[in-house]
């Protein structure tokens, strides 16, 4: 009996030691963990998580300082992906930090803008161009919709609008947009009298999507 205990105990000790050394030796690289977390984050750079950008938040998650449910733009699916990566239990999004919104972009009302440059300094992705006392404008393609330009604006000339979305192929059965329900509607001559460019007076077509 003693031999059995000794052999098994010895084996357990040897494996434990081996695993301990291995864990120390092949420790997950801190940087690569941060990198992986950062690649899940939506890169909105909105700071709603309480950190000044996505990478700082990724670092905070990696060091165990921050929780995984602090990113509203990432939404529930983002929390799920983080939980999966880090091997933790997914938890509901911390709604005190904000809500998940559809993609938005900032638009500057150029008539009201006084050219104070405050929003340019606030933009985390340098998506606003302009100069002192000259009109500013948003590069819509680069805007992440983080809303950080709103508070500094002294004349409240920045609005957030929904990002124009491309047409998407609907999920079958979701709505009347199902391609099978796309029946023909013969439309009246939709040509405006002047024949020129008139995008408001669109011809009527079957609703889709």
């Amino acid at each position, binding site marked *: 009996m003693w031999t059995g205990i000794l052999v098994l105990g010895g084996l357990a000790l040897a494996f434990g030691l081996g695993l301990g050394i291995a864990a120390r030796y092949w420790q997950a690289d801190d940087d690569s963990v941060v990198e992986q977390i*950062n690649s899940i984050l*939506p*890169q*909105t*750079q909105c700071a709603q998580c309480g950190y000044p*950008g*996505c*990478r700082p938040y990724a670092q905070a998650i990696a060091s165990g300082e921050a929780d995984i449910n602090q990113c509203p733009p990432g939404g529930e699916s983002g929390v799920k992906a983080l939980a999966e990566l880090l091997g933790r239990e997914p938890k509901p999004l911390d709604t005190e930090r904000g809500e998940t919104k559809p993609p938005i972009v900032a638009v500057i009302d150029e008539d009201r803008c006084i050219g104070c440059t405050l929003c340019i300094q606030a933009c*985390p*992705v*340098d*998506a606003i161009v302009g100069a002192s006392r000259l009109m500013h404008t948003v590069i819509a393609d*680069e805007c*992440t919709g983080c809303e950080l330009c709103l508070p500094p604006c002294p004349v409240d000339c920045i609005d957030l609008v929904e990002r124009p979305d*491309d*047409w*998407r*192929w*609907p*999920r*079958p*059965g979701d709505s009347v*947009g*199902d*391609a*099978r*329900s*796309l*029946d*023909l*509607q*013969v*439309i009246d001559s*939709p*040509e405006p009298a002047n*024949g*020129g*460019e*008139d*995008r408001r007076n*669109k*011809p009527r*077509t*079957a*609703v*889709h*999507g």
Partner: protein
Amino acid sequence: MAGKIDGTNRGQPYMDETLPGQRLHPFFGGLKLRHHKQVACQSPVGTPPLPERLYIPIQQHQGRPDEAVVEPGDKVLKGQLLARGTGLRAVPVHAPTSGKIAGIREWPVAWPPGSQAPCIVLVPDGLDRWTECAPLAEPDRDNRDKLIAHIRSCGLVGLGGAMFPTAGKLAGDWPDLHTVILNGAECEPWIACDEMLMRERPESVIAGGLMLARATGARRVVVAIEDQMGMVAERLEQARMENAPEGIVHLVQVATIYPEGGERQLIQALTGREVPHDGLPQDLGVVCINVATAAAVNEAVSEGRPVIDRIVTVTGPGVASPCNLKALVGTPATDLLEAAGGISDNTRRLILGGPMSGLPLASDQVPVTKGTNCLLALTDSELASTQPVMPCINCGECVRVCPAGLLPQTLFQQIRGENFDEARELDLFDCIECGCCAQVCPSHIPLVDYYRHGKDELSRRGVEAERARRARERFEAREQRLAREKAERQARRQARKEKLTDRNQAKDQVAAALERARQKKK
């Protein structure tokens, strides 16, 4: 199921001395369908009356959007450049007839279904006056680069329906293209435009094939047609005897199985090899081009004519007198239907393309593009939408017919469960959307719509990921800039401070010197 080829021997000419098509190989899956073609082939290709207005989509190919080069009020001649793009995939668009540009406006288009896209509105003047056409000079035809550049400038895209820029297929760094396959296997029911073209202008098809062979450096041209195409074989054979040197052009008849006319399926039938799923036909040393494209290449090179019209089959149970019409690009569908005797009152749906892979049109105003091969009017009795969609019973019928060798039912379940990454792993993007699986599904599940939805979601995620990558780059660049500016500010402050202490020292030194002088005086 045919095995996939080993990726390592890609690019090596396979059976170089064996002629593709000498022996026919079966491809996996597919369906035998009723043909319905003869109904539209009773009379020669007709010419519809000139429409009152043409709506020419600015973008008629895959790739970056093009740019209009005309303005409202401009007078244009037939064949004049209307829009052009930048980049390799760009394809110019030309005026289909002479007239005046009325404007550029949003107009219903076929893709995406129910959407609108910017179209150039052209009001024909009825004179049909040509601009000056510049055919490619005889010696230049042997220059590959010049030939390909000419094909690009004449706006050639795949006229079979996919509208892939033809020049993009020809120009490339492929080691050894030995065969040009001219795809005349128009396998989808009802569509007959290629059949009519090969009946009426076989010499143009053969001549175009020879030009494409010159442009690619290929030594052979294989014209593949279906074995049910009546007199086409005879006409092509005669044209080959008259126009082509001995032993270069070969005519092959393939079995009529849908979707044999699909590029990958046809290549498999002719060579016995599968195009690798992440590769191109060029990797096998072949390039596959539609017969109508070949005829258009001939016209572009020998007459200098850009692509401004095409043959469209107007057919279906809802059409009074089905026919083939040579339609100008930009002609609204309703004008063509009118020219074919109009549509009956019980027409429920208009389809662009064939019944299997075509797109339902949301409006009868959708204009003809370079890829419009067929307008199909279906009545109540042909539509399956009255059949309720039932749950999948895992019968496996779809697996049996899928020509891409996929697992349609598993793909469907993954996409329905929004597991798009798993669907990608199951090679969703190898789906050619032929519609065979949906056709045989006993539960009437609109499978292809699910696949299109899945592909759309995945490509959208790609766009989002790209957007995130850019935002991250810009954020990190800004952080670096701010850190650098901060460091510079600090350095300046430090320098000033040091200067200040220097000044204090200098004062001390002056005071010390004064002190010494005073001491001396004493």
